[in-house]
């Protein structure tokens, strides 16, 4: 189909158009032999609901939610194992008893937050680790509140 092809290659190309246009293919015209199926709608169509979405279940504040990976064994008592995925919501205000990501000496760490009688501690859920006590004047910097832990089983 030379006529169509010269149309396609157009004249925007200063180098002329000796190469065939990239879209040009040999054409076979289809034979419309098959019939159109009118079909019946499925009786279940009216009962279809949306898929369940884990994001919806696990993420309350999309913009403020970050995923981090747990390392070490300091929180095994809270069910957090090495390599687990933690869902962290920065929109939440950290309360006593929350598992939080906090900044300690320039590192991010996951611990349970304890606020009692004006004293603030970051407590590991493993007796092998001593709690981190905040000294007077030292500011607690909570990075976010852990809302879920996701553990995938090896198989």
């Amino acid at each position, binding site marked *: *189909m030379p006529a*169509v092809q010269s149309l*396609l290659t*157009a004249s*925007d*190309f*200063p*180098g002329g158009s000796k*190469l065939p*246009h*990239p*879209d*040009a*293919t040999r*054409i*076979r*015209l*289809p034979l419309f032999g098959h019939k159109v199926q009118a079909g019946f709608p499925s009786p279940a169509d009216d009962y279809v609901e949306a898929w369940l979405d884990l994001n919806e279940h696990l993420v309350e*504040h*999309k*913009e*403020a939610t*970050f*995923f*981090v*990976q*747990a*390392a*070490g064994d*300091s929180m095994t008592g809270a069910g957090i194992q090495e390599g687990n*995925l*933690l869902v962290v919501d*920065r*929109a939440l205000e950290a309360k006593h008893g929350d598992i939080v*990501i906090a*900044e300690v000496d*320039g*590192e*991010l*760490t*996951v611990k349970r937050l304890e606020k009692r009688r004006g004293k603030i501690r970051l407590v590991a859920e493993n007796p092998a680790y001593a709690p981190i006590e905040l000294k007077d004047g030292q500011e607690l*910097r909570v*990075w976010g509140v852990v809302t879920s832990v996701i553990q995938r089983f090896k198989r």
Partner: protein
Amino acid sequence: MGRRHQRHPTLQAMTFALVDGNNFYVSCERVFNPKLEDRPVVVLSNNDGCVVARSAEVKALGVPMGEPWFKLKDLARKHGILAYSSNYTLYADMSNRMMQVLGSYSPQQEIYSIDECFLGFDGFPNADLYTIGQRIRLQVKQWVGLPVCVGFGATKTLTKLANHCAKKGLAGADGVCDFGRMSVTELDTLFARIGVGEVWGVGRRLTERLAGMNIATVRDLRIADTRMIRDTFSVMLERTVMELRGISCLELEELAPAKKQIMSSRTFGAYIYTLPELEEAVSSYMARAAEKLRRQCSVAGAVQVYIRTNPFNESHPQYQRGVTVPLTQTTSDTVRLTRAALWGLKRLFKPGFAYQKAGVMLMDIGPAEQTQGVLFQTASPEHPALMQVMDRANAKWGRGTLRLAAEGMAKPWQMKRDRVSPAYTTRWEDLPRVN
């Protein structure tokens, strides 16, 4: 506080806010690496060339924006300046989060750049904007971890200036500046202290020319004769003067989010001389562009490809050219788009030049469902399933995991990014690790 500007609902139709991230790229790095807090940090441009973001500590050392990194090495060693390559994946994700949070403050939002957006507050005649500004600062800091400054004004130009004042602490040191709360005399005093070069749209050239006419401060420009400004300079600058006086000439541009053009281009890490290498680069850029196209569920009707030498290298012969290749049928198929781009490239390429940059642009973009069939064409086969697998694999295992052979394997043209931080928020294996 004296007389106040009245926020009369009919006279002053709109109040604008401009929210701008402080040292945005540096702040993004700091969110995931708290060690960088209070330390001098810079982020470098593509190919680790120049400084594109500076922390306050670096600014205090007198390092200008755009300074080439190699010139900084001594200073960096002396002061322990930490340098990062641009991690645009991270910055874009953090920007999206910030913009989403900001969008909840007003239905009228203009995202002006990766780190700043305008908000319109026309339905808030009695709202205490200053308090809203403080709330914005707190929320963005807590939710996304980024420090921002907020400026309020009756026009976009004034709002930009208010943001500058907030950032520099020229009108209160708490990161929010509302010109609407200041009296005429207060504003006048403030504007007399700010150089005219800080005004939106007034660049270095213009600043010099204005200085020659004794217009040195914002105050000078604000009271300049508009007719003279228009005749000597331009209608644009006249409009700026009007805006400085509180007469709004620029509207919010809440553009449709789906892009009408998608670009993907890079400067090479080293010069390229041969067609096969250029083909690899172009194929790779097209793969990125096509992925973006599919993500917004669009198809393209034409492909533009261009190549150029380094225009600043005046001793070398120069060459620069681009072509547009129309497609017979709109598509989002990487295979077809790449074929079109390479076809165009073949006609552009001239040997004997040191090529520095190549790029592709997808044009004539529309929604995927409106793909028009072509009479007498079985069309080049589309590969929707393959494209889906490719996009998923690349999202999961990193860009370029699955690619067309046309992209090549070694990629000698790829840019240098030796100091790039992990894609903390967009790749599973790059997630921050916490003990």
